[in-house]
């Protein structure tokens, strides 16, 4: 079962930790995965996969009323050798990495006009990242992006989301044998934006996939990073960092499906919350199927609640169908930066703002260092500072 505790011990606990009761990933969804939006009932909010999400703030993405009336400015910086194509949904690469698991993902799939396919040819080792800048200019947009990474290729992909708008768009990764991919998705939206996305990564034999999801902005952000393996030796690392401010809803729902033997996964998501009605949701599902002998997996979610009025729901869930594994574990903890800690630091001459900074920096530092992309690490540290400045 899940291990959940409140650290550090304080007089009061500001965050809430919810730990899943017995449940299975497959049965608690309202409908099986499908590309057709009509296969999903319109959610009413009490379904397991919707119960944390404020449906009324989805701007109609969940009930079919959202129409593609908006604009998003897209800029792709592709290093030499990388190709960028615009294709229709008949293209065999589109939808190959995974099938939509909820109504909004299916809505996005059913509604986009053209998909973008970005290809890194086999054995090509990129020295510069592929950068995709998406700047919302208001209104609703749908999209679909496929990153097709050839065998033994190495690539860093950075997707940036800024501006305002309602965005439902899925991202697929087809990762060839032995390829190494780092994917960074930054949600730095204006505080009015709505963003829902399913990230599907399908890893080839001995492929390495590192996903870094960074969520700062948005009124409502709901992401589904998902990983599956097609051959042994796959290694997935899913890192996440969120800073949830007053009034924001940021939800990350992960699934790692160990369906073949001898693969690894490591999930680390950390979030800081501050302000009234700041709400972070983290769902971490890891499945170890009967065939997946030799699996090694660990998932962890840590939250730091900086002020009263913020709420965290953290639900780690591990299902194991074989005992022949190297290791499997999970942990979730929500700590509160409390008055006693603040007093201790201030009693050593450290001003309040500096004390908060010290604690938050310390909380995120280790995670940021694991990203391995220098300019992203720096940007994150700057961004964390900005979030803190804006708060106190």
């Amino acid at each position, binding site marked *: 079962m899940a291990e959940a505790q409140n650290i550090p011990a304080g007089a009061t606990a500001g965050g809430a930790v919810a730990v899943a009761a017995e449940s299975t990933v497959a049965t608690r969804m309202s409908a099986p995965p499908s590309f057709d939006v009509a296969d999903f009932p319109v959610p009413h909010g009490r379904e397991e996969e919707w119960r944390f999400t404020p449906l009324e703030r989805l701007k109609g993405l969940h009930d079919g009323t959202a129409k593609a009336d908006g604009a998003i400015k897209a800029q792709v910086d592709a290093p030499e050798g990388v190709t960028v194509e615009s294709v229709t949904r008949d293209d065999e690469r589109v939808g190959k990495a995974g099938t939509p698991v909820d109504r909004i993902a299916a809505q996005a799939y059913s509604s986009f006009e053209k998909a973008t396919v970005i290809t890194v040819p086999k054995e090509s080792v990129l020295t510069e990242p592929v950068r995709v800048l998406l700047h919302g200019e208001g209104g609703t947009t749908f999209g679909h992006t496929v990153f097709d990474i050839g065998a033994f290729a190495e690539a860093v992909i950075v997707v940036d989301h800024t501006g305002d708008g309602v965005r439902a768009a899925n991202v697929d990764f087809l990762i060839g044998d032995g390829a190494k991919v780092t994917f960074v998705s930054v949600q730095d939206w204006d505080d009015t934006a709505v963003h829902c996305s399913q990230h599907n990564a399908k890893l080839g034999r001995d492929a390495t996939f590192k996903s870094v999801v960074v969520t700062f902005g948005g009124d409502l952000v709901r992401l589904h990073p998902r990983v599956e393996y097609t051959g042994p030796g796959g290694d997935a690392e899913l890192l996440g960092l969120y800073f949830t401010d007053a009034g924001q809803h940021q939800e990350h729902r992960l699934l790692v499906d160990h369906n073949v033997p001898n693969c690894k996964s490591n999930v680390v998501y950390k979030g800081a919350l501050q302000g009234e009605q700041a709400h972070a949701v983290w769902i971490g599902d890891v499945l170890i199927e009967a065939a997946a002998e030799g699996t090694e997996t660990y998932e962890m979610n840590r939250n*730091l609640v900086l002020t009263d009025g913020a709420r965290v729901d953290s639900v780690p869930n591990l299902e194991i169908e074989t005992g022949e594994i190297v290791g499997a574990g999970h942990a979730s903890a929500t700590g509160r930066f409390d008055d006693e800690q603040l007093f201790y*630091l201030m009693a*050593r*001459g450290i001003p309040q703002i500096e004390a908060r900074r010290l604690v938050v920096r*310390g909380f995120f530092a280790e995670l940021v260092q694991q990203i391995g992309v220098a300019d992203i690490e720096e940007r994150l540290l700057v961004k964390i500072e900005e979030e803190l400045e804006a708060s106190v």
Partner: protein
Amino acid sequence: MATLEINDLHVTVEAENGPREILKGVDLTIKQGETHAVMGPNGSGKSTLAYSLAGHPKYTITGGTVTLDGEDVLEMEVDERARAGVFLAMQYPVEVPGVSVSNFLRTSATAIRGEAPKLRTWVKEVKEAMERLQMDPAFAERNVNEGFSGGEKKRHEILQLELLKPKIAILDETDSGLDVDALRVVSEGVNRVRESGEVGTLLITHYTRILRYIKPDFVHVFANGRIAESGGAELADQLEAEGYDKYVKGGAAV
């Protein structure tokens, strides 16, 4: 010469049935270079005095004054008091996850000294101070008070005392929970700071044991929210022999 002057200090805390007065008119003057031991039974208000001087938000000052060289301490924020030269070594130092001891010490020293200490001399300064307190160097990379033993927490408090060099040091039951070896090491640390002659020390304790290592100039018996009796070091010997009974039974004497 720095002087901390406490005048008719009244303090309350919020209790279940409304505010409860803990300090009922404390008068005490501590000058740089002096060591005052405040001794008293459990629940007499000793720790409340310590935390009120440092500015803990749990305590409400309802009357009296506290000044440091004429400056109103009660008007200052917690961090301002520390920068003005008031240091509280806590009985129960709190854990601060994610913040390493070395980062914490440097941030604190920077705040207290008004500028960042030069890295080279600072590293040496910390290393030597830790050696004197018989602390493992690996300590510096651990998170503040996280998983520290009782003795480690107290050494860490005294390490800060040595590095921050306050004008007034308040030691709240620094001796509690220490074995004899740790008590000796911690006391030696306090004595090094006292020997500089630049600190006024307020040593709050339940037991006379620590006074064998740290010789006070003045001893005050604390009972029922105020100082019941003051004297020299010989008062501690009397307490050792007779206990607190005469101050507790039938209310405070004097």
